[in-house]
């Protein structure tokens, strides 16, 4: 197999051009040269990969001429037709981190070339790019170069070979927000007891799932005139026409269904059923109105309590369905409900 071709990006400091006084050094392509940290990468790659060129750019130059610098560097990278791009590692150098993040992102997303960088967790580049890139977690100074290369080189090769990337703790990258499974050495119960012992002793411990900022939705103001309101039914209880024509999954639904109930006085077990896989379906299948109360709404319509039951209802399965999917479904059918002048929605779950 041919060696993986790598282009490496570093700043003026690591290229031994100079410190802050040389930070305005413009981007420069050095074909065939391995510079500074590049030799550590070359050693770690062995016969697997070779650095075919190094790009050097001053940190001030990059950040003050970001559009031009980015465009120039992308051209330089492109000219080398590499299989892999590595920037840094930038450790805790802020502008270097931002430059590494910006250019790694551009190479990955604009050129479609596998790309990787490395930084200390408090580098401002981490906040800007951790959700978009693999950034290997490094120490806060160049003293951590050996350890950084030890993690970056194998991950870079995996990326170049388009292999499956494991969890952040396994591969050594800063969490991207994408949850990835892996097998720990100890079972969960043991890990929980160990974590509790540390917590009880006021020793530091690392949670395996940092709590997200929870999205809370404030209820809308009450509908003033229910007697003239068009009311729609929406359910995550999985009520569908018999036979589940849209094949909504019994768990982890990938879509929702839109069904017409114009003229339907009440749902019946002959024509409706549930697709939901998270509960005993006997009662929902016996009388689907228990989950999607069409019968009760028709009654209220007759009594004049509500204006009209909307002729379409939307249904999906809530069981194990990702919050992101549920949000996307609702964003879409809410538009349809608005276009149909629906005033209020009754959401039923199970």
């Amino acid at each position, binding site marked *: 197999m041919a060696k993986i071709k790598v282009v490496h990006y570093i700043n003026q400091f690591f290229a031994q051009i100079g410190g802050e006084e040389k930070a305005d050094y413009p981007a420069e392509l050095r074909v065939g040269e391995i510079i500074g940290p590049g030799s550590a990468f070359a050693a770690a790659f062995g016969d697997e990969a070779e650095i075919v060129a190094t790009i050097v750019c001053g940190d001030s130059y990059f950040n003050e001429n970001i559009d031009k610098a980015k465009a120039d560097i992308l051209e330089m990278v492109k000219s080398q037709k590499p299989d892999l791009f590595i920037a840094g590692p930038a450790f805790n150098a802020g502008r270097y981190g931002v430059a590494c993040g910006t250019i790694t992102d551009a190479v990955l997303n604009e050129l479609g070339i596998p790309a990787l960088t490395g930084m200390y967790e408090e580098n401002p580049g981490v906040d800007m790019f951790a959700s978009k890139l693999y950034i290997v977690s490094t120490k806060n100074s160049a003293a951590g170069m050996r350890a950084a290369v030890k993690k970056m080189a194998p991950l870079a090769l995996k990326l170049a070979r388009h292999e499956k990337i494991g969890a952040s703790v396994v591969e050594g990258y800063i969490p991207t927000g994408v949850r990835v499974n892996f097998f720990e050495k100890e*079972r969960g119960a043991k890990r929980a007891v160990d974590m509790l012992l540390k917590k009880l002793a006021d020793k530091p411990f690392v949670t395996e799932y940092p709590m997200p900022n929870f999205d809370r939705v404030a209820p809308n103001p009450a509908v003033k005139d229910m007697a003239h309101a068009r009311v729609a039914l929406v359910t995550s209880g999985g009520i569908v026409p018999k036979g589940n024509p849209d094949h909504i999954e019994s768990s982890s639904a990938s879509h929702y269904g839109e069904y017409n109930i114009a003229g339907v006085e009440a749902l019946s077990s002959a024509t409706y059923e549930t697709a939901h896989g998270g509960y005993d379906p*006997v009662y929902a299948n016996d009388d689907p109105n228990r989950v999607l109360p069409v019968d009760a709404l028709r009654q209220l319509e007759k009594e004049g309590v509500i204006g009209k039951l909307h002729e379409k209802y939307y249904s999906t399965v809530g069981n194990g369905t990702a919050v992101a999917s549920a949000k996307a479904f609702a964003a879409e059918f809410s538009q349809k409900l608005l276009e149909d002048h629906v005033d209020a929605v009754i959401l039923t779950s199970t």
Partner: protein
Amino acid sequence: MKLELGKIYIKDIKFDDSQRIEDGVLYVSKEELTKIALSDDHLASAEFDIAKPGESVRITPVKDVIEPRVKVEGSGGVFPGWIAKVDTVGSGKTYALKGMAVVTAGPIVGFQEGVIDMTGPGADYTPFSKTINLVMVCKPVEGLKQHAYEKAVRLAGFRVAAAIGELARSLEPDETVVYETCTIKEGLQKYPDLPRVAYVHMLQSQGLLHDTYVYGVDAKQILPTIVSPTETFDGAIVSGNCVSACDKNPTYVHQNNPVVEELFKQHGKTINFVCHILTNENVFLADKERSSFFTAKICKMLDLDGVIISEEGFGNPDTDLIMNCKKITAEGIKTVIITDEYAGRDGKSQSLADAHASADAVVTAGNANEVVILPKLDKVIGTLDYINKIAGASEETLREDGSLEVEIQVITGATSEVGFGCLSAR
């Protein structure tokens, strides 16, 4: 309370006319077992088969997994309230048949039961690929509703497991582990300087085949209560679940509760393991509030310093988990929670349906939505008729080459929230 748990290692299971255990080999008679299984007239048939680790066998739809045990000394008997009369268990001497399990199977709901692969990538995710499984596929009499079918299969499993356990009554265990807890006063005197720790065990009780039973009582109907940690080893807690199999605790897991085992390992050394607190996961808000207030109150009355809280299930019970964590933390007690995640097939979605800052120490058993390919296996015990509808599957699950594309949600015990396995996520 002191329980001696004698372990008898089973190396093989064979069908034979006479039932016995000899040199670590369990001999069972299909005829005898069928008679025991069918003593309930809700079941029309029960077929027995054996699946061994490494064999190219897929078992589905799996309902429950049970470890045969027998009580040889002390009050009560295994599965109190079901097989034995109600009497306090957890002391004396119990023998367990290790390395094997009774697996009940049958299409009760058709899309909620689990999958156990004895080999291949699926085997890595389930603990029951490592046990020699005596599988009983039970079919109902015509017209039987799902909940009645579930109960019939549940009890048939306990009867068969208890009958097999009985074969070990006069044997000499290969190994014995002693578990001993103290009363409140003894604990204070014996371990005055050790932190007081309990296990808050949330039992699945959402209903409609999401049920757990404690001494025969439906956990929906209990107020949070305390038991000695040894009681679960005698089958005081049993599964009535028949839902997304990855994070529901089969009876086997209750009998071998890993949190209880791990806390016992630290008991008297780094902690004083005070007790096992049982609570539920009911669906009504008032029930959730009541149970979490009771649990927090019990923790405070016991002067606990720390607790481990384990969840069972996902979505709706996430709110119970967070309520428990929040209210117990508010009493000044340190908490660690164990859960699993539903972060979507791409891993990008929010993992839990609820969150709170007090939940700062979380152990995760992995993302149940992760997709895996399970290759075609030579033999299926049960049926693949429902595989495309099983929770965690889709219309595309069963592929042309016979392999399955599924979320690990379908695999029995894959993301155990009592921390039975090693799977995790970051």
